[in-house]
């Protein structure tokens, strides 16, 4: 039972960028030269219900390192920690509604018992007109372990494709595309978290 009343959410509004996206608060690049793992670049656009790119959104990501360990005290796993890799990214969207991150493909993290989750990145989107942020996950379309991921299985089959980032290039880093549709046709499956 809650004891205190939770604080409600309000929109981030149109004027957050000088604060939340100033150079030392933006985190498009999560990797350093010594970071372990397969380098990837994530690119995508945030679109509204009319298919119009949203140029005043902010996307945040949270992910495990390449070994499947979160840089967080609640992750008591035995996979190696890389203190320099926070796993946190924050990007604005540009005039075309696009955001990007340079990171590594995360390792698999545990679910319950021996069961593991498919590699995934937690994604949060804020914008004017969103009174509460939206939360979803990015999965990798070419990842075989998606088939029995316990969270992906909660998403109706017809909507799962909206959570799959598709590999667009084989270079280094590989580019994965992940568009986020807030409303309407191909609306991204968002979570009640």
């Amino acid at each position, binding site marked *: 039972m*809650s*004891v*205190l*009343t*939770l*604080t*409600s*959410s*309000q*929109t*981030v*509004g*149109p*004027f*957050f*960028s*000088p*604060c*939340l996206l100033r150079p030392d608060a933006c985190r498009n690049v999560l990797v350093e030269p010594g970071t372990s793992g397969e380098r990837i670049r994530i690119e995508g656009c945030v679109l*509204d*219900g009319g298919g*119009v790119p*949203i140029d005043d959104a902010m996307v*945040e990501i*949270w992910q*495990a390192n390449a070994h499947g360990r*979160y840089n*967080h*005290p*609640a*992750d008591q796993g035995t996979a190696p920690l890389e203190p320099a890799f*926070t*796993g*946190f990214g924050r990007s604005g969207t540009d005039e075309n509604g696009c955001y990007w991150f340079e990171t590594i493909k995360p390792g698999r*993290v*545990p*679910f319950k018992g021996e069961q593991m*989750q498919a590699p995934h990145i*937690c994604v*949060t989107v804020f914008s*004017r*007109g*969103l*009174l*509460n*942020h939206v939360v979803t996950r990015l999965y990798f379309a070419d990842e075989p372990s998606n088939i029995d991921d*316990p*969270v992906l299985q*909660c998403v*109706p089959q017809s909507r799962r494709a909206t959570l799959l980032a598709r590999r667009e290039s084989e270079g280094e880093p590989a580019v994965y595309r992940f568009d986020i549709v*807030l*409303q*309407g046709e191909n*609306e*991204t*499956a*968002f*979570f*009640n*978290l």
Partner: protein
Amino acid sequence: MDTITTIGTIIRGDREIFPPYLYEAYQSTRRRAPQLPLIGVPLTISELTGPGPAISSVTPEDADLTRNAGTGGEAIGQRIIVTGRVLDEHGNPIPNTLLEIWQANASGRYLHRRDQWPGPLDPNFLGMGRCLTNDDGVYRFLTIRPGAYPWKNHPNAWRPAHIHFSVFGPSMLSRLVTQMYFPDDPLHQIDPIMNSAPTEKARQGLIAAYAHDVTEPEWALGYRWDIVLRGPDATYFEPGEGKQ
């Protein structure tokens, strides 16, 4: 608010506390509100962790918005102290977590290229600050009271004075972006953003209290505002779609 508006049913989190995505009186929600049911998912290590504990780079100067423009000058306006605690729903303090705030200046103008209404800019005010909570979950900012400002949502629309807050807390569940309002402001009644909070209880939780014990003589007025973040216990989930 007198205006009758269409209120959507897609809501993330406690529906007595959190706004619906669609709240038509706030026009920007119409094209941006998700329309399909949110997916109930199990809580895993991915949601029970979050970036909060790993972010800690702030300086004491960051919490003084009256001087952090770096011009050597001081911002114009009523100097105020805004302080409070960041708590979980059981009242436990959340230490060492990042708060980022942004606000209009005393005339109600943001330092942003898209804010072009003719309120004067203040060269000594950036309108942004940040700090970490201490071991007791306490944060504290020195700033100036922001002005109200017009917006184009509907004819003669004015936003009540407010300060935007972004808070991380310990997990993905605790992430919160919200706005703090000031007490006794008649503009509360006509603001669709504030009124998107669904209950009086939820709206009251967004309003700071004047605090004379925070007020400093010959210096600044004090306001106190506590922030209560979600934790695993405040989340209801059932696997499958549409369980809200």
